[in-house]
């Protein structure tokens, strides 16, 4: 099986400061992967590199076997860590916008999820709360039939009930050949849903393991291990 995401010796520096150093990683199809690490460990940098928003200082990153570019943008569905939608637009406008923009966007799936979360399509984004805006963005991203979903902090601002619904949506809706990489601090909430975890520390890969391997070897949850490894 061809890797959906491959990093070889990947390095990215901001000026003199390295954000990622010599990262080697492979993500195969059909996996849900948690990208975990404390603030400033390079999670967002890695996701941005995969999405072509940043270029590597050294080394290589390949998405579906190719360098990030026009082709990979169709294969990748990206949820940034900030709000990028125009505030004056209505939710329904954004759905048409996405339909125009992405040929793999499934508008009926998006509308369905909006209904389930009681979000009124006629509302302007401006009128929505922070959490609701995040839900809308995540719905848009998950409604694309992509091969690789890159979600930067997808559930941070969302209430626990909606979080459950969203995780459920992720489990039931993604294609078996697709993979999801998500960065988060809310490990306990999400670890049952993950296949693998990647721990980043100061721009390096500290650990790659499956969730059950961690539990088997250490006799503790990923959340507990994280708190131990990154103890301040």
């Amino acid at each position: 099986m061809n890797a959906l995401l491959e990093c070889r010796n990947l390095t990215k520096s901001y000026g003199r400061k390295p954000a990622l150093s010599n990262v080697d990683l492979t993500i195969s199809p059909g996996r849900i992967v948690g990208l975990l690490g404390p603030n400033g460990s390079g999670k967002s940098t890695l996701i941005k590199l995969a999405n072509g928003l940043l270029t590597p200082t050294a080394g290589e990153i390949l998405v579906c076997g190719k360098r990030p570019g026009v082709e990979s943008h169709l294969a990748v569905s990206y949820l940034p860590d900030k709000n990028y939608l125009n505030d004056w637009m209505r939710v329904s406008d954004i759905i048409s916008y996405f339909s125009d923009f992405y040929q793999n966007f499934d508008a009926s799936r998006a509308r369905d999820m909006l209904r389930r979360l009681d979000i009124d399509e006629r509302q302007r984004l401006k009128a929505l709360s922070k959490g609701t805006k995040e839900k809308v963005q995540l719905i848009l991203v998950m409604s694309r039939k992509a091969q690789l979903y890159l979600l930067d902090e997808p559930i941070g601002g969302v209430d626990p009930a909606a979080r459950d619904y969203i995780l459920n949506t992720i489990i039931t809706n993604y294609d078996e050949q697709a993979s999801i990489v998500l960065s988060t601090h809310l490990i306990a909430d999400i670890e049952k849903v993950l296949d693998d975890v990647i721990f980043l520390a100061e721009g390096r890969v500290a650990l790659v393991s499956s969730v059950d391997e961690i539990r088997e070897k250490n006799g503790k949850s990923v959340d507990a291990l994280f708190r131990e490894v990154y103890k301040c």
Partner: protein
Amino acid sequence: MAWQFDSDRPIYAQLVEQIKRLILSGAYPPGSKLPSVRDLAAQAAVNPNTMQKALAELETDGLLFTQRTAGRFVTEDDEVIQRLRQQLCQGILENFIQSMTGLGFTPQQALEQLQIHVEGEKR
């Protein structure tokens, strides 16, 4: 049923146990069809691959079998189910004795306590 997981043990192993209980309790009676991997994963709010792994183990144990196009079913072999029931029963009994000796009862006294309790329930 709510699926609950301890944080210190592999999730797939806990799924195996919980599905065994569901079979014995009659939630999935012998010969019945199980929901799809995805549906089960969604119900338990776990990763589909983890659920798949648990079901594969139950299949190896002979508790489930797959019919290629129709899906996955609970075994109709009563012997296998009785054996499972015995096996889980042993575990519960061991825990019980262990807890009771922890409280200072001898196994014999524990048995007496159990008897008193059961008789009390009857009335």
